[in-house]
């Protein structure tokens, strides 16, 4: 059989080389694999959901088994999600696995990216893969948002309304752009089917394409590795793809799937039947997007309602926190490898990774960035924090308005100092120091054992 294939395709040499590809031993190198495997689970459960979902805003009368909605007018899309949840066998658990996996997928992408950032794995020659990674993050967030909007429930409808308003706020082109994308004025009926095309075709195609390039570049450039005995800029030390890494990855795939199945089976997520069908004149509270859009929502909540007038042009309030700042942040993120190379003047190739403590400025900026996004994300849930901790919601917003600038600066400075203090030592910041074993000598002195 192998001979039959080999005699026709002549891939033996190529395959042997591939099977011997070396994977360095470090748990953080598995974060990218987790992102990949959660995406695989998303595709698998997503195909199942596609079989039953109807991307159609036509009003129908709900006549299913969920009594509180019986007889109400809902869209065909919402009705199909209700049917999926209550009538299709295993439909609800599939929906829940899909949604939980989406939440974890973006988280895995972010954590993978943080590892690459803090260890300097984006430096030459890997700038291209960093750029692709930033693209993948943006498309992953886009996947999440379009998927969140598909059920056409009250909560997701409010999210779409915010997206529409943010688009409207873009100077000059906003109204045209919003009208073009939504197919008319909000709530336009065309948007559901357009979101569906984006969610199941356009974005997955982009993500699969970029993942392929991402991995092809990884194989071509080989893995970076941490410093260690026998590891140089000219080699990669680790385990080969076959058999060692294959079984590790398979184990990781199955365990990832089981964690997602566990969550989907036991924890309720996005109960659209509680929110009810979307109606343009109703909003519900508390109303939030999924976590990876929370920072955008937080920015909108944080920014004062200033409509800025510049030379007779009005810049509507949502533009700055909704378009300008996120745009600048992602540009900064994408250009980071080039900015850093410019500041450090280091344009050499690097196969050995940095210890975060050895690059204190980068580590400090990364820490500040994490705190910045965390503050925005928390503000996105400001009203939930308000009821949970019994603090007025305005007080929370005012606190975060100050904290958005103070806390990242403080976190950055603290991180910088910690890095400086750890430099030149091999102390692990989260583990107890191992210490040195001493022996008392006959003469009364001490020596290391």
């Amino acid at each position, binding site marked *: 059989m192998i001979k039959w294939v080999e005699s026709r395709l002549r891939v033996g040499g190529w395959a042997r080389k591939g099977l011997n590809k*070396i994977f360095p*031993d470090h*748990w*953080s*190198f*598995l974060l990218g694999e*987790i992102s990949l495997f959660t995406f695989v689970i998303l595709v698998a459960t997503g195909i199942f959901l596609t079989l039953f979902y109807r991307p159609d805003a036509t009003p129908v009368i709900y006549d299913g088994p969920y009594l*509180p*909605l019986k*007889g*109400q007018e809902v869209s065909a899309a919402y009705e199909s999600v209700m049917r999926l*949840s*209550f009538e299709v066998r295993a439909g609800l658990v599939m929906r*829940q696995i899909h949604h*939980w996996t989406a*939440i*974890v997928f973006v*988280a*895995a992408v972010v954590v993978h990216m943080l590892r690459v950032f803090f260890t300097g794995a984006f430096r030459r020659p890997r700038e291209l893969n960093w750029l692709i990674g930033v693209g993948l993050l943006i498309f992953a967030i886009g996947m999440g948002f379009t998927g969140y909007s598909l059920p056409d429930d*009250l*909560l997701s409808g409010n999210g779409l309304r915010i997206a529409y308003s943010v688009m409207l706020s873009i100077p000059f082109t906003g109204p045209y752009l919003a009208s073009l994308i939504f197919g008319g004025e909000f709530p336009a009926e065309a948007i559901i089917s357009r979101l569906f095309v984006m969610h199941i075709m356009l974005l997955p195609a982009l993500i699969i394409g970029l993942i392929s390039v991402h991995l092809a570049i990884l194989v071509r450039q080989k893995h970076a590795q941490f410093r260690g005995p*026998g590891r140089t800029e000219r*080699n*990669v*030390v*680790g385990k*080969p793809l076959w058999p*060692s890494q294959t079984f*590790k990855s398979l*184990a*990781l795939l199955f*365990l*990832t799937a089981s*964690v997602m199945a566990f*969550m989907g089976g*036991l*924890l*309720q*997520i996005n*109960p659209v039947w*509680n*929110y*009810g069908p979307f109606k343009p004149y*109703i*909003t*519900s*509270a*508390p*109303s*939030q997007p*999924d*976590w990876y859009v*929370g920072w955008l929502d937080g920015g909108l909540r944080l920014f004062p309602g200033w409509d800025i007038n510049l030379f007779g042009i009005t810049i509507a309030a949502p533009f700055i926190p909704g378009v300008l700042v996120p745009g600048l942040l992602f540009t900064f993120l994408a250009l980071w490898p080039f900015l850093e190379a410019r500041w450090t003047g280091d344009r050499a190739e690097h196969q050995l990774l940095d210890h975060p403590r050895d690059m204190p400025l980068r580590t400090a900026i990364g820490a500040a960035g994490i705190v910045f996004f965390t503050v925005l994300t928390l503000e996105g*849930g400001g*009203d*939930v924090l*308000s*009821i949970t901790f019994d603090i*007025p919601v*305005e007080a929370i917003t005012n606190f975060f308005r100050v904290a958005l600038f103070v806390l990242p600066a403080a976190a950055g400075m603290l991180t910088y100092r910690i890095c400086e203090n750890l430099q030149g030592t091999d102390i692990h910041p989260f583990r107890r120091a191992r210490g040195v074993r001493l022996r008392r000598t006959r003469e009364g002195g001490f020596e290391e054992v």
Partner: protein
Amino acid sequence: MTRARRVAAVLLLAVPATAGTKIVASAARGQDTPRRYTQSEVEAGRKLFQAGCASCHGEDGEGGLGPDIREAGAAAAHFQITTGRMPLADPDAQAVRKEPAYSDTQIDQLIAYVASLGNGPAIPTVDLSGTNLSTGAEIFIANCSPCHGATANGGATGRGSLAPSLHPSEPVIVAEAMITGPGQMPNFGFDAATRNEIIRYVRFLQARPNPGGADLGGIGPVPEGFAGLAIGMGALVLIALFIGKGRAHARGGVES
């Protein structure tokens, strides 16, 4: 009315009754027959009122630090006192549900006195027979969930006030809130039939029907995101730590 429905109605009426209140069942749905209070109840209530309430609401309920309550009626008095919201220690704080400060008899006396001050609304009758869950759900989602949340778990309404969870509220309390509009809540002016529809759905939510598993508080994507990051991502990082441990005996390799 079928027998089953009648039994259900009696059972539902028994709920507020066990909560220490006397409800007079009205014959026709949608009509509240005011309960007659005796003169001695009113008199006893007046004494209690002057000791515990007059410092804010005035000697004769005409108001002062607190609002004028002469037209508040038995419905508002019953709502505020049985849920422990009144008396309130700090007039600037939002009244929240706590243990009532008075015994059942004293509460009746206070209600009798407040009811005698004017022509305020009587304690409403809740009758869920003939109500439709779907009608109630639709009205609730449009009118109540913007503040109390889609699962009636409560929400923040701004300026330091919050819409409480409706899960501990007996049906008659929910009805009284709709009639009297306590605190920041508007008086919705629903008729009795509409109120009953809404209460039907509130009782459905109170039973916490949770298809799909544990509801994580029923307040949407914030706890969901937290669970996804802490449980989901947390478990996967632990798994990566476990799998990623290099096994010394495995055949290693070097690639250059």
